[in-house]
């Protein structure tokens, strides 16, 4: 409707010949000028670097392109290294485990908050979101101090309970556990908020109908809440998977990839290779391995947008 009005107002006045002034007053011109800063930022600082990363990955350390007809390039070099496969394994393990636990904790906690009387929910929700609000670099420092080798506050509690001491960040398996734990701690409040919003949109009549049919609480969750929340569950998990896959702060501060590269993920290893090792092309090649994950996520999100567009 607004478009029709706009056309009626402007086009007759403009007539057939468009002078420069008339052109500048046209709706699409104004619209384009308003979008221009966005296009410049996105094209110059996101699209261009992303493409440049692909180009960098084709170069050797002294910034010369590899001959494409020989087998020697960054990718064959990476595939031949054990560390690379360890990083792949660790990144996948880290991202998948962390997202599953974040989703589980978020889902359970959202149900508990939803059970409370409406006026009490606000303050619980407020407290439970705090890990998400603190900058991750700051809260990871607190975890680093909690896991300190000689003054670990957890080990102090363990000592009083008669449980053997744990070398939290010294042992490769415990270090992996710690990195995942901190990530779950940071991320689950986000799931909690999303799932709580989704739970609020489940009509109460459905629960009443299920109760009349004799459903217990587990059946209500499984047959009523889960199907109603499916969309939000998928999208939130997907978002989180991307962010966790590309995580940097937590691993960098907590373990810096150690002990013996056992906790490196793509982002931290790429950083180590490119900035410290001064081999920028190799770092770029490693960081490109985050792209397939992005492509999968983009596909599902686009499909979701299109499906909702059709519904609306």
């Amino acid at each position, binding site marked *: 409707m607004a478009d029709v009005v706009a056309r009626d107002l402007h086009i007759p006045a403009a007539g057939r010949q468009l002078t420069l002034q008339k052109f500048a007053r046209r709706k699409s011109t104004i619209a384009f000028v*308003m979008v221009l800063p966005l296009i410049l930022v996105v094209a110059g600082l996101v699209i261009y670097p992303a493409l440049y990363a692909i180009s960098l990955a084709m170069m050797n350390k002294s910034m010369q392109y590899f001959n494409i007809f020989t087998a020697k390039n960054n990718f064959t070099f990476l595939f031949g290294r054990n560390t690379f496969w360890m990083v792949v394994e660790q990144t996948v393990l880290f991202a998948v485990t962390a997202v599953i636990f974040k989703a589980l904790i978020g889902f359970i906690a959202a149900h*508990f908050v939803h059970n409370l009387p409406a006026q009490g929910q606000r303050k619980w929700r407020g407290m*439970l979101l*705090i890990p998400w*609000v603190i900058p991750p670099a700051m809260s990871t420092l607190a975890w680093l101090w909690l896991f300190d080798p000689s003054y670990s506050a957890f080990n102090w509690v363990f000592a009083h309970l008669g449980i053997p001491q744990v070398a939290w960040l010294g042992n490769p398996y415990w270090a992996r556990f710690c990195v995942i734990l901190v990530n779950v701690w940071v991320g689950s409040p986000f799931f909690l908020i999303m799932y709580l919003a989704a739970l609020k949109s489940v009509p109460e009549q459905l629960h009443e109908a299920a109760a009349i049919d004799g459903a217990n*609480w587990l059946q209500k969750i499984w047959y009523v809440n889960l199907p109603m929340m499916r969309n939000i569950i998928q999208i939130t998990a997907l978002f989180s998977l991307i962010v966790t896959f590309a995580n940097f702060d937590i691993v960098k501060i907590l373990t810096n990839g150690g002990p013996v590269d056992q906790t490196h993920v793509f982002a931290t290893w790429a950083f180590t290779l490119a900035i410290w090792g001064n081999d920028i092309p190799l770092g770029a090649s490693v960081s490109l391995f985050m792209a397939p994950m992005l492509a999968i996520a983009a596909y599902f999100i686009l499909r979701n947008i299109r499906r909702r567009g059709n519904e609306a």
Partner: protein
Amino acid sequence: MTTATAEAAAGQGRLVRYSSISRGRRRTLYWSYFFLIVFVIFFLTPPVYMFITSLKSSAEISAATNPWWVYHPTLSNYIDLLTSNQYLIFFRNSALVSVCVVSLTMFISVLAAFSLARMKFWGSATLATGVFLTYLIPDTLLFIPLFKTFAFIHDKTGIELINHWWVLIILLPTLTVPFCTWIMIGYFASIPKELDEAALIDGAGYIQMLTRIFIPVALPGIIAATIFCFTVSWANFLYPLAFTTSADQLTLPVGIVTTLIRGDVYAWGQIMTGALLGAAPPLIIYAFLMDYYIAGLTAGATKG
């Protein structure tokens, strides 16, 4: 209704006790409180422990007494940090970067979102989706090519971009602009068309339409986007770590990690105080504007 269900169930030989709905509800409530307390303990342990440690002197920390209790509380860590020039420089850098990034991002994304949501032109729908997809490209993928590009710019023009705090004002919009534009499109699209028609009939131009109608009506959305933007630029760790090195150019998160941790000597009391003070601005904003904060969080995915 309940008794009927109970009888029907009993008729089938199943033991269903619907003795009292209110008793059942109360039991659910107690269990909910119990588990929520467990979750709150898990979620609040690190910040509380930060606070406990920040009140301790180095002597008390190394004395290996009960780490969960303060026997001789002292504010010396706070006084040391707030009078140390270096920490105040970190704070200033962080504040300047965040304020500039927020203003820049909001300017770019409100204009663009208005245009994409209301003034349809060739390719506007594709552009809106494209902007959202660029939000998915993480900073960990972008920093290496950007680093190389900046070095290249230095070689060609002599402009040194690396190791200045203001370079973050150019870099951080890569993270904030796509998402803010996306949620602003959502908010602007939900404003009824009748409002802009009325404005058009009254003779308003597009700029007037934006400043007199869209910005005031979508103010909650703008606040939510601003908060998101501030939190992201305040918390970002990777860009300052990769692009700045001198102590007077660092922002708060990187400053604390690189200057307070010297080799193997950890000044834990000061680190925890620094981290707590660094977490304070987002926490204060969150405490006062919780509803906007949550609106911004959920808008990203539900409007997707």
